[in-house]
Structure formats: structure tokens, C-alpha cells
């Protein structure tokens, strides 16, 4: 507790200094006067207006000088470029990217363990199941373009908001499999011996579980009944085609994992789009029929050590420029529909990635819980 007061006092002192330093520039701002908030006030700021406008938010974030992000792999949904872009746009703010390959649960664990410390994460990009268990960790905030996010893509109070979704896709090496993959049962063929990998243990990683759900949808199951997905992987295992190696960009480039079922944005990012680090023969297909998507959510840590930078990061993510960066990676951003209407979407990118899916299945919280319960009792036996 003591250190927390000290940290608070230090921020207050810094804020007071900055207040006098900024007094001159505040008047020259185009809209209104900027306000300087205490740490506690900034942690409760629910919109840019609380900072006296965008200029005030930028000034406050610059004063903090840091932003702690967590579990954002550079090759995931273009986060590498997005982070670089932020540091370029706001050179006064340094981004600390912690545990890039961690899970959503790691985000929550870090927030709890480092509560009150300067290293605690400021913002989360978090899966829905873990988020719903930890709603008390987050601070409500509405970005300027709040109205462009569809109503069912966000919490009415601004506690969380969708950022992007991929579609479950099959990535494969065209050199090894010239016949391609047209339906999920193709993967059961003898050509695919020791070839098919998913992103970890489905009872642990959401992306791996989504591969099972997608297989369920493709094999006559539904969001309420994912057993056919487990059966599919059992058959895959029995055929000797299932590979229990954890795929990464490196295993795809080396050919160690010639087929990977994962989010489309990751399959796209590991292919020719990655240049020399990617696999030039990597092809991404979203199988026809019922597709599976899952939006990730943006939230701000209620106990964020850099609350202004955290809010500036959200404002930045929901600008058309960054939404287009998500899109370029094959991740459909939450504001896509509004951007298409306003013509701010990058048309070339959109035509390359393909139009946004009109209808895809996204498991509700209840369905996800039910599916996870089934996985935890059936999965290990199916592939063990």
C-alpha cells in the first residue's frame, strides 16, 4: 500500500509540474482548454472530453511517457505494425510489450499480480470467456468513434468493445499439398499424415478450441453441439494425421507444420505477407459452409499505471488507419461496416482480403462454457 501512495504522489507531482509547463500550450489548442487530471481521475476518465479534448489526452499521455501492452504478438493481426505506428505517431510514449505469446488468462494474472505497480498492463486485448469472469478489472471508456462500433459489439457502458475477428481457416503448404483443401474431411486423407496442427490444447487455448468448434460446424455439429468436432479430431488422430506440435511462424516456414487450423489473420500473416520470414507457398482457405469467428475485446485496466496513454491507445486503435491495418492482416475490424459506408476503408486491402463475412457463427458465453465443459471431459481421451 505504501508504495502505491508513493507512486500516486509521484504522479501527482509530475502532473503538477507538467501543469505549469503546459499552461502556455493549452491556450493554443484548437478546441477548448486541456485539463490535467490526477492519476485517480485519469483512471476514471470515460471519454476524451474528461481530458478537455484530444489535445489534452495526448498531452496527458505524453506526460506519462509509457504504455504497457500485454500478449500482443507482432505477427498477430498486424500488431507489430500497429505498435510501431503508435510510437511513430506519439514519439513521446514508449510501448512496453510484455509476454507477447501469453494467453488471455495471463493478461488477467499479470493485472492482478502487478496491481499498483508501474509495470501493470494498461490495456487488454482479451478473449470473451476470460473477460466475462473478470469484469471488475476494467474501466469504462468510450472512444471518439464510439458510434461507429455496432451496438451489439460493445458494452453499453463502455466496459469492453470488440476490436476484430478472424475466421477459423485452414492454412496449408501448396507445394506439399497441390490438391488443396476443399472440405474438412480432406484432412483425414492419407496424404496428410503427420501434418495437421492446431494452436495448442483446446482446453487451454481459445484459438485451438475454436478449431474444434469449426470442425464441429463443418461436420454436422452446431454451436450448441461441438461433439462432432471432437470426433473429427479423434479420427484425425487415429488416421495419424494429427500433429501435436505447437505451430508458430517458424514451424510453418520450415515445413514442420504443413497444415495449421487457426484464425485467418494468423494464417495470412505467416504466409507470403511475412516476406522472407513467412512461407511463400502458404495458402489460407476459409472452408465453405458455416464459418466460425470470434471477436476479441479491448478493455482498459481499471488500475492502469498510465491511464491517459491507455485511453490514447484505444483512440488510436479505432482510427480508420489502424482499423485498415487490422483488415490488411485478415482480421475484420469492429468498425468495418461504418468505414465502408464512410468510404474510409482501404478498398484495395478489402478486395484482397475479401468482403466481410455476412454471417458466421460466434459462440455465445453460455455456448462457450458448455463447449469448454465438453472439451475438458472429452478432449484428452480423443487425442491422447
Amino acid at each position: 500500500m505504501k508504495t502505491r501512495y508513493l507512486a500516486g504522489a509521484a504522479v501527482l507531482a509530475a502532473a503538477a509540474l507538467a501543469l505549469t509547463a503546459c499552461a502556455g500550450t493549452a491556450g493554443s489548442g484548437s478546441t477548448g482548454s486541456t485539463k490535467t487530471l490526477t492519476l485517480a481521475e485519469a483512471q476514471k476518465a470515460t471519454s476524451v472530453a474528461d481530458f478537455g479534448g484530444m489535445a489534452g489526452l495526448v498531452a496527458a499521455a505524453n506526460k506519462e511517457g509509457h504504455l504497457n501492452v500485454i500478449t500482443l504478438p507482432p505477427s498477430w493481426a498486424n500488431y507489430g505494425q500497429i505498435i510501431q505506428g503508435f510510437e511513430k505517431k506519439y514519439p513521446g510514449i514508449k510501448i512496453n510489450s510484455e509476454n507477447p505469446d501469453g494467453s488471455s488468462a495471463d493478461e488477467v494474472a499479470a493485472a492482478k499480480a502487478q496491481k499498483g505497480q508501474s509495470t501493470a498492463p494498461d490495456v487488454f486485448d482479451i478473449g470473451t470467456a476470460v473477460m466475462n469472469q473478470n469484469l471488475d478489472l476494467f474501466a469504462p471508456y468510450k472512444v471518439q468513434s464510439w458510434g461507429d462500433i455496432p451496438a451489439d459489439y460493445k458494452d453499453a457502458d463502455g466496459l469492453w468493445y470488440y476490436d476484430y475477428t478472424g475466421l477459423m481457416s485452414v492454412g496449408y503448404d501448396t507445394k506439399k499439398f497441390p490438391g488443396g483443401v476443399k472440405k474438412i474431411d480432406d484432412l483425414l486423407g492419407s496424404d496428410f499424415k503427420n501434418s495437421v496442427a492446431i494452436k495448442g490444447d483446446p482446453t487451454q487455448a481459445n484459438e485451438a478450441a475454436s478449431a474444434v468448434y469449426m470442425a464441429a460446424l463443418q461436420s454436422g455439429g452446431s454451436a450448441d453441439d461441438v461433439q462432432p468436432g471432437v470426433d473429427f479430431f479423434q479420427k484425425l488422430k487415429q488416421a495419424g494425421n494429427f500433429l501435436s506440435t505447437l505451430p508458430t511462424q517458424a514451424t510453418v516456414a520450415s515445413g514442420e507444420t504443413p497444415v495449421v487450423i487457426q484464425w485467418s489473420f494468423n494464417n495470412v500473416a505467416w504466409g507470403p505477407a511475412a516476406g522472407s520470414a513467412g512461407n511463400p507457398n502458404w495458402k489460407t482457405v476459409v472452408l465453405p459452409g458455416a464459418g466460425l469467428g470470434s471477436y476479441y475485446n479491448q478493455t482498459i485496466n481499471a488500475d492502469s499505471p498510465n491511464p491517459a496513454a491507455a485511453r490514447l491507445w484505444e483512440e488510436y486503435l479505432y482510427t480508420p488507419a489502424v482499423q485498415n491495418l487490422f483488415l490488411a492482416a485478415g482480421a475484420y475490424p469492429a468498425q468495418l461496416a461504418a468505414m465502408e459506408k464512410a468510404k474510409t476503408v482501404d478498398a484495395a486491402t478489402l478486395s484482397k482480403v475479401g468482403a466481410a463475412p455476412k454471417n458466421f457463427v460466434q459462440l455465445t458465453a453460455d455456448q462457450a462454457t458448455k463447449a469448454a465443459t465438453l472439451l475438458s471431459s472429452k478432449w484428452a481421451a480423443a487425442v491422447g
Partner: protein
Amino acid sequence: MTALASNRGAGATPRRRGARSTRRPGTGWIGLVPFSVYAILFLGIPAVLAVASGFFTSAGTFTISNFSAFGDPVILKDLVGSLGLSAASAVLGAVIGALVCYAMLGMNPDGWLRTVVDSAASVLAQFGGVMLAFAFIATIGNQGLLIVILKQLFGENSVSSPIYTVPGLTLVYLYFEIPLMVLTFMPALEGLKPAWGEAVATLGGSRWTYWRKVGFPILAPAFFGCMILLFANAFSSFATAAALISQGGIWPLDIQRALTSETVVGHENEAGVIALGMIVVMVVLMSAYGVLQRRAARWER
């Protein structure tokens, strides 16, 4: 590490006790302070916190409901996996390592071969984690050098890499288990006096009699002690397994899953219970070793 420390403790205590009481209380304990503080901070406190977390819900109220984890068929299956993997790598590592030691006994202690094996063992015994996994992926992984050559010779589907399964991990673990055995067992083997062998021969015993009646009984406590150390080493290994196996199958991976799962949420505190289970397994083994040691030491005096 823990096993090694308590291992030595178990052997040393009975003999020291007498000497200790005659010594005046001095300032010698100060020398122990840095190690004790280090062990308490980085081993004791984390272990207590980890195990304690098993007795609470995520909201912080006391509960024993986390122990239902031990009724979960997956956890039980993975316990068998962990025990099997550790036992197989410990037994194989101990036997092969002991044979290597025996072979080294015939070498000139200052010869170059002996020196090379000695130093290689001390380096390789510490070779674990992701680096070890990578070394195996590069040699006998799906696209590893050997597997690719075999595939080119015998066809694409003729061979598959064994290292991505729990039984296959035995092979990987042996890479550090054998050197560890060489390192820890060699001093015991060197303690065998040539005179004992000569005495057996003089009395008309064969080489086999020597090993059965003299060599093995003397070496047994050290041999099984080293084997338990090897078991503990394999039982607690995490990073190598995590890098090679993505579908679980041993307890350290279950702890990771309980702590970090995005899909089956709310089981974080079961990790503490599994950790407690691991400690219990080690305590049982160490106690068995203690009994063994005392019986074996009886005639040594």
C-alpha cells in the same frame, strides 16, 4: 535441486549428530545465512504460496473443493503419464549412466577421454529447457535432419518423429539424465577399493560374487539415491515438454493449463492442489530413500 539437497542431508544427518553436540555454539551459522535467505525467498515462500493457493477459491475464501481435481480422469491419466515418464527416464538414465561410469573406471583418471567425458557430463546435465527441445526438433523432429534423410530413403510416410508424445519425451530427457547420473554416481563408484575385489578373489570368489556380495550392496544406496534424483529431475521438468507437446499429458503441463486456460476458466487454484500432489510424490520417494539409506548404512559402520 531440492532432491539433491535433501539427498545429501539424509545421508549426512545421522553421522553428524554426535559431533555437533560437543562443539561450542559459535558464529559459524552466519555462513549459512546467504543460502538460507536465498532458499527461503526463492524456494520456500513461492512453494508455500503455490500450495496455499490450492486451499482457496479465486475469490479468496477457504475451500477444499479444489481437491476434486484428483477425481478428474484427465488429471489422473496425466499423473500416470508423469510417473511413467519420470520412472522410465530415471531407470534407463541410471542404468545407462552406471554402465558409462563402470566403463570410465577402467580409464586412466587423468587421461584425455576421461576428462572429456567428465566435462561433457557436467555441461550436458544442465542442458534442458527449450534449447534441448530445439536440438531434438532439429535432429529428429518432423523436419529434423535424420528424419528427412530417412524419408528421402524410404518414402514420405515411412517414418514419423517420436519426440512429440509423452513416451517419446523419455528419449529427450535421457539426454540430460545420463550425464547427471555419470556426474553423481561416479564418486560412489570411485569409492570402491581395489582391495575388496582382491579379497574376494583370494577367498575364491568370482567376479560375479564380488559384484553380488560386495560391489552392489555398497553401491545400492548411492545408485538408488541417484535414481531418485533423476526421477525428481524428470518429474519437475516443464519447459522441454511444453515446447514439444501441445496437448498436455503430464502434471507440469496440467498446472500450466489450470493457470492459463482461456477456455476452461476458473480453475486457477487447482494448480496449487496439483503442486501439492507433486510435493507429496517427492516426499514419499524421499522417505523411501531415507529408509533405504538407513538399512544400507547399518553394516557400513
